[in-house]
């Protein structure tokens, strides 16, 4: 039995909705939070630490009856840069794409600098993305650089 079939057994198929595949195992819960699936009312299936030929292990999320806008999905690029997005309609793959890290990020990430105005006054943190692979985000306000190690989601 190949691993694909095992996966299908572990996370059952959805009729309509979105499958987010190839999420790093440790990022599944962050993706759930970023896409606000905690407060979502339709069926959400997810699994993590699945076997993956490409990445060793991976996570997967299936969201029933929900199709995301690209800008919503691109938010997850910070934690799942190689995620693939599969739209399912009537149990069939209707569309397949990969996420793209945006050039500019607003309101997802917290500036790591405690003395930044965004952590003091009521306003939304904004960043320009200096490095999409290594994740280096330059704060629009304090100009400090938030990196993977200091990344914290709002």
């Amino acid at each position: 039995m190949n691993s694909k079939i095992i996966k299908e057994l572990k996370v059952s198929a959805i009729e309509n909705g979105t499958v987010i595949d190839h999420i790093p195992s440790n990022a599944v819960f962050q993706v759930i939070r970023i896409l606000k699936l905690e407060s979502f009312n339709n069926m959400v299936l997810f699994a993590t630490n699945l076997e993956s030929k490409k990445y060793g292990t991976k996570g997967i999320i299936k969201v029933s009856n929900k199709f995301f806008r690209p800008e919503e999905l691109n938010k997850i690029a910070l934690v799942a840069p190689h995620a693939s997005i599969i739209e399912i309609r009537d149990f069939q793959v209707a569309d397949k794409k990969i996420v793209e890290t945006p050039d500019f990020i607003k309101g997802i990430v917290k500036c790591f600098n405690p003395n930044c105005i965004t952590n003091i006054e009521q306003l939304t943190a904004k960043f320009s993305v200096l490095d999409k692979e290594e994740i280096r985000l330059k704060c629009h306000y304090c100009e400090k650089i938030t990196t993977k190690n200091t990344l914290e989601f709002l």
Partner: protein
Amino acid sequence: MKNKSLVSINDYSKDEQLKILELAKEFEKNPVQNILQDHVIASLFFEPSTRTRLSFESAVNRLGGKIVGFSEASNTSVKKGESLRDTILTIANYSDLIVMRNPIEGSARFASEISPVPIINAGDGANQHPTQTLLDLYSILKTQGTLDNLNVAMVGDLKYGRTIHSLVIALCNFNTTFHLVSPVELKLPSSVKMHIKERKLTYHQYTDMEEVIPNADILYMTRIQRERFSDPLEYERIKNAYNLDVSMIKNTKEDFKVLHPLPRVNEININVDVNPKAYYFEQALNGVFVRQALIASILGIR
């Protein structure tokens, strides 16, 4: 530059920066003019400052303008918990231009986004202090006759010194060769070095100051601050690493000048002060002309 806030040095293009320096020359020739008599400038200093605040206020006063504001936040409504947003929106009603220093980083950018009148950043924490950069550029231009192709040595706290960061970024427009002298712990951060590398300019790093002096056109000294060190012994060891003595500037280039943003502690011996190559007090005076030029230009008067 009418109505254009100055928050970070890169908000102004190289041409715009040069225009301010050009205009500063005119104000240096004629620093007392009655061109701001119809204007009110707000000077909001949320933390103490001597040079910056007084030189802004002197610049405005010599041009006949009026100043409202405060020099520390403790007796203002900030103390009552007022947000910066509300303070700025209120004071913008009373003034044509706001000069602000605030210890919170990014505060000036935020103010410039919500304020109906332009903002000049007079320092936002460890982030930016662009008028210092303009007066440094002016001082270099005035003493060297050019900003292009110079050897600039920077000494001291290159890691936390915001004046260093902004000056490095600004000098990247002028094909500068950088000589960076600091203790290993206080090296120029990679986020600033990135600008030098992007322009493919040359930089050298040293821990010893003496070898850079003979080749330098400008020696830019900075203070190493006690509060940067968690270990007081470490501070004591490092603070005495860079002390400029007059004997060290004997064999320097003809137009060589020593600059320092001030205040100094012990990094420049007072025996340097009377040497014609010491330039730091003139540098502070240049701040008045540069700020006059900036204010006049933002208010659309010149």
